[in-house]
């Protein structure tokens, strides 16, 4: 908070808003997965992009990584790292979705709510690509408002 930019800057306001929005998005996205790793394991198994040996570890780690990344972005603590991981996650999700779409696989996305029947479509890929771009915009910020970080 101490090092928030003194003058109001439209771009920084936009980036701050996006930072907090991306954080809330990740926290929301992780909330359904945290308590049920076995179900999430089944979902990521269906994507067939990770080696079988890594699947259980990924099913355990990814939801918590999403949660802590979202938290960091929302409160502005280590937000650069948060934005970096946000971009990495969205980039990986976009590639995995696009690959399965190109393979002609019809499956539930499992993106936000695991029980939801959101089908994998071109819009799902586009949405994640937009999220990836928004993450880049946050990462591009030199400073940010309403953040715990002092730099």
């Amino acid at each position, binding site marked *: 908070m101490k090092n928030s930019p003194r*003058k*109001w*800057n*439209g*771009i920084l*306001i*936009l980036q701050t808003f996006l930072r907090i929005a991306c954080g809330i998005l990740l926290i929301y996205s992780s909330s359904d997965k945290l*308590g*049920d*790793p*076995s179900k999430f*394991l089944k979902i990521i*198994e*269906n994507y*067939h992009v990770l080696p*079988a*040996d890594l*699947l*259980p*570890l990924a*099913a*355990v*780690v990814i*939801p*918590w*990584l999403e*949660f*802590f*990344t979202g938290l*960091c972005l929302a409160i502005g603590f*280590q937000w*650069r*790292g*948060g*934005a*970096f*991981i946000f971009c*990495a996650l969205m980039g990986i999700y976009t590639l995995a979705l696009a690959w399965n779409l190109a*393979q*002609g*696989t*019809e*499956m*539930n996305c499992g993106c936000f709510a695991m029980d939801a*029947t959101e089908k994998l479509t071109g819009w799902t890929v586009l949405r994640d690509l937009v999220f990836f771009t928004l993450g*880049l*915009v946050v*990462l*591009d910020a*030199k400073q940010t408002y309403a953040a715990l970080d002092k730099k």
Partner: protein
Amino acid sequence: MTGILQEGLVVWAKMPLSGLHLFNRPVYSHIIDEASLKGFGLNLKRSFSSLSAIPWKQSFGEAWNLFVFASFFAVLFNTFYSDGISLKTELPKNYDFHELLNKNQKSSGYVGWKTAPSKSTQNSVAPKPLTLDQILRVNLVGAKNRFDQKSSIFLDARSPEEYAEGHIPGALEFYADDFEKFAPLVLPQLEDKRQELIAYCHGSSCELSLHLANALVAQGYTNVKVFFGGWPEWKKANYPINTGDQP
């Protein structure tokens, strides 16, 4: 409307190079700048830094710390969490197929998913049958891609008569309503439990392929999908077909 767009493009093209760029032009800074000109009173003198100006080292360092912390926390949480999972990969335990057959000689249907585990398989948790929404599907494009690449094994869940009338070339005959008869003939050909298997039948109105997929999942196959368009869609697309009782 077109005029406004053209004017906008001209303004955009004349903008100085700064911030995020696409085709050497700024992507969104002009929008903010125009908003400023209209009297929002925001200080927009500082334009976006370019991506090369992002402190990548700092960002990566923080990201790594966050990743390590989240990973440790996740593994620790999973260890003590009542619904935690084993971090060691375990393929679904297989039923003893012959034992199941012996116990179910009189019953009909799909042995794998209708039979409760016996004492000798009490450690095996019977997978719940997947529903239409849960099973992985491939569409016509996906089926054709896999057919062309020979990356999957097709399984025809229809009756032997229908199979003989026409089927996808290479598809194995596996009548789902007579699992006991066909399983000993087909399953030995499917040694790799991770091989992608694609079941199909009469199309979306038919559930034979779903039943077959469930039976195969119960047998420990981990990559089973259903081509829901099935035979009618394949035939309508004029893709290659075979007739007779040979794949």
